[in-house]
């Protein structure tokens, strides 16, 4: 087993510690709920602490994979248990461990029935999530990709809202149909590349354009559903509105990122020409998603549904950034994925806080919460501003770079996407006004302000919002090398003659 620089198999530990925690929870009798919650919380905190050395031990100068672990798994099919992290995927692992702690904290009191199964699902969820981001073997990636479905299905289906069964099955089928097509794509690729699932090896080969085209669309089916891109997004609002707070936080903060991560890790490096040829289509879909998501938010009456549609719009920005195929766009895209994870995660956490008190998600039932819960109002305003991309918050950095990259790649797309920030400001401030300002609604009077537990849940998010907003280099620094390598591969990969859309910055206008 090729142990990595750390000597200690950190990635496997990160994946299997939560799973071990889940198994441990199995043994605890159902009646001791407090013990279950304590164990779950400590396991997730332990996982977060273990994930910190990733942050410090990461070598930002190279695009090569780090913390690599490789072990034969199924020799007959040449499948290896192959894990590794690079600039693109490292941030998501940290996000996953952090988000799990917060979602466990937020559902401390709100989950009453089947507490044991809930925390088991959340912990298995964490293991699968980290697995997806670390897997470098296609088969292993697919295993984690699908394994994630079960806990999420249960999270939405069992502890969700009134219409949870429909939302859960819709979520499951949407993702399953997408990913089974990817499975066929993976197998075809496996045979075409001479029986290997090793992603890095696959990324160095060139495939005939025809094959690239079909495989790109097969992978698109799986990733677009997860992102969610425009036509296949309708599962998201249902899944979000019906999922319990922890479920929608995990869904919004990490699950959605896997689709975009998939584009970055698989669709681009493996099928460079197809990716380049498909950029116009992708950019149009992203722009539609941005404007469509934003405008639809204007007419929403349910709090969570509005935030869900806002994630469709935000993820439209991300895909715009990724398919701009230039450094600014891509780095902006990846950073925006982290930002969206933080901001929308935080928004759902805050909705959870208010939902625990009023048990209603209709915006009409709220009003004047600012005078009743001032601390909560100030926290919520920070996340609202981050969501509309106000400078000094993380949203701005991401959106600015994406729009810059998008504008460089394709001017009309850049300009249309920029309108997204106006509508974005529109619906978010309108939401904030209807919920927090104006006369205090009868339902809202006398609510207790944020208690210590909720404050501890939301504070890390506030810190991250301003940290990335004011000094993003700590996070952007990770990506430079990996993104440069990826862009090089996408632009020059495949037949040398192919015209590259993303020209260098200065000679665009000459």
């Amino acid at each position: 087993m090729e142990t990595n620089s750390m000597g200690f198999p950190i990635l496997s530990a990160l994946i299997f510690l939560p799973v071990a925690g889940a198994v441990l929870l199995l043994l605890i009798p159902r009646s001791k709920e407090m013990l279950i919650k304590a164990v779950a919380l400590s396991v997730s905190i332990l996982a977060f602490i273990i994930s910190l050395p990733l942050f410090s031990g990461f070598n930002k100068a190279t695009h090569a994979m780090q913390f690599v672990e490789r072990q034969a798994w199924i020799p007959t099919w040449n499948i290896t248990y192959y894990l590794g992290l690079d600039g693109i995927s490292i941030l998501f692992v940290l996000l996953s461990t952090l988000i799990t702690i917060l979602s466990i904290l937020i559902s401390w009191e709100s989950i009453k029935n089947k507490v044991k199964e809930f925390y088991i699902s959340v912990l298995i969820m964490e293991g699968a999530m980290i697995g997806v981001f670390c897997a470098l073997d296609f088969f292993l990636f697919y295993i984690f990709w699908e394994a994630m479905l079960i806990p999420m299905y249960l999270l939405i289906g069992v502890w969700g809202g009134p219409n949870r069964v429909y939302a859960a099955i819709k979520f499951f089928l949407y993702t399953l149909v997408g990913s089974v097509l990817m499975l066929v794509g993976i197998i075809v690729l496996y045979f075409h590349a001479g029986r290997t699932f090793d992603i890095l090896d696959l990324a160095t080969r060139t495939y005939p354009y025809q094959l690239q085209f079909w495989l790109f669309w097969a992978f698109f089916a799986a990733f677009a559903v997860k992102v969610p891109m425009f036509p296949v997004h309708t599962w998201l609002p249902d899944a979000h509105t019906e999922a319990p707070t922890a479920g929608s936080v995990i869904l919004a903060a990490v699950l959605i990122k896997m689709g975009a991560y998939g584009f970055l890790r698989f669709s681009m490096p493996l099928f460079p020409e197809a990716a380049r040829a498909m950029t116009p289509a992708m950019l149009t879909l992203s722009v539609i998603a941005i404007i469509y998501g934003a405008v639809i938010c204007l007419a929403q009456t349910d709090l969570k549904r509005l935030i869900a549609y806002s994630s469709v719009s935000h993820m439209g920005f991300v895909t715009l950034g990724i398919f701009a195929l230039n450094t600014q766009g891509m780095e902006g895209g990846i950073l925006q994925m982290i930002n969206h994870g933080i901001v929308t995660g935080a928004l759902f956490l805050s909705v959870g806080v208010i939902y625990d008190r009023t048990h209603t998600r209709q915006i009409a039932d709220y009003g004047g919460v600012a005078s009743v819960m001032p601390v909560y109002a100030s926290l919520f305003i920070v996340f609202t501003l981050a969501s509309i991309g106000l400078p000094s918050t993380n949203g701005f950095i991401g959106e600015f770079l994406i729009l810059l990259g998008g504008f460089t790649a394709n001017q009309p797309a850049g300009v249309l996407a920029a309108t997204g920030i106006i509508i974005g400001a529109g619906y978010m401030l309108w939401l904030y006004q209807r919920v927090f300002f104006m006369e205090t609604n009868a339902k809202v009077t006398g609510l207790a302000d944020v208690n210590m537990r909720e404050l501890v849940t939301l504070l890390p998010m506030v810190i991250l919002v301003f940290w990335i907003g004011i000094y993003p280099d700590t996070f952007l620094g990770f990506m430079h090398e990996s993104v440069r390598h990826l862009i090089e591969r996408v632009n020059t990969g495949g037949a040398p003659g192919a015209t590259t859309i993303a020209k260098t910055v200065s000679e665009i206008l000459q």
Partner: protein
Amino acid sequence: MPLVMPDLKPITPEIVMTCLALFILVADVFIKRKETLALLSIIGMAAAAFTFALPGALNTTFGGMFISDGYSMFFKIVFALNVILTILISVKYLAVERVNFGEYYALLLFSTLGMMIMASAGDLIVLYLGLELMALSTYILAGFIRYDMKSNEAALKYFLLGSFASAFLLYGISLAYGLTGTTNLDRIAMTISEKGLAGKPALTLSMIMIAVAFSFKIAAVPFHMWAPDAYEGAPTSVTAFMSVGPKAAGFAVIGRVFLMAFPMVRAEWVAVFIPIAIMTMAVGNIVALSQTNIKRMLAYSSIAHAGYALLGIIAGTADGLASMMNYMLIYAFMNMGAFAVIIMLRSEGFKGDAISDYEGLSKTHPLAAALMLVFMFSLTGIPPTAGFMGKFYIFMAAINAGYTWLVIIAVIFSAISAYFYLRIVMNMYMKDPKETVTLTTSPSMGLALAITTVAVLAIGVLPAKVIYLARVAFP
């Protein structure tokens, strides 16, 4: 010509099984407590299983009529597993159904014997005998609950259509015999290539007849009509046995006959099997969507799984057959587990086989619900479970043989199948229990559940061993 004693080593397992079955029949008269009979038959089966791998067991005997090789050994392991698990889950069940007779175990053993003979048949005659032995004992098992009208009806339908199909088989065999002058599979293949019978309509006709008969056995559409009624009517433990045993034997025989006897005319019989496979997957998955009885739903799911396994046959490569064998083993575990849970629900005065009976099971019996969840996800083919590994191997073999489009169809149908499996999980986890359900648990049932769950999760996570075993069965 002196009487030459044929080499009996390869056939020792079958001999042991025959003695065991007869002994059980006789012992039934003396032993009152039927549980001991069950124990005896399990021990006997284990002993027979032990003899599979004796030295010198792996060669042909009786002049090529009986082949004992890696291929047949793998299937015999599947059959052994199948019968042991069936006996484990049916001990308490028979008492509940008040049909606690010793003949049940004897019949199970005879049926397994028939399957083992089919798996090792190198000659059409031996194949026919094995098939009939298995079929006849399974007909009786299907109708074992004499006082229940459904069980009788199931037995009748299975019997009549079964004999109708075996008549077709015989007609096919006679034609093949007529054309090639022999019933030995290897020599048939040789004569076809020597005499160049490839395009002859007579040969095609005989192949169709044989294919039809075997399709009946594995319940492939359009010859599946008996399966839903037989599965629903028969006692649940027999349904479990029927859904794995005869199906695996059917596939063993298809693999043997079509790949050993008719390799030259592969294009033709593949053309026969492709529409059958597509229809099987389609009907199996789609009709299962609107079922209300869980046994009937699992019948259609078993038809659908036959469709997936057919992909392995259609692939025709060594990988294809290995994937089909591997699929049968994994399918055995999944199905046995699922039926075990259904049997657990069957208690005095509570049928427990309607899907609505499963509502809120996670609240009343969390462990049973969790086990059922594992089996349901495995049948859907979701990664951490064995079901996915089985399907993945089949899809790999099929794509490698160039049937990517067929795999895409199969993949979409398996996505559709997710809905009706998840409906059970939905009922268990997302609905509140209507009335309290008491489970009839017994140590043997617990053992069976343990074996199947561990197998499903272990193969799901570490499939290397099983795949290697299936793959190495081929020279």
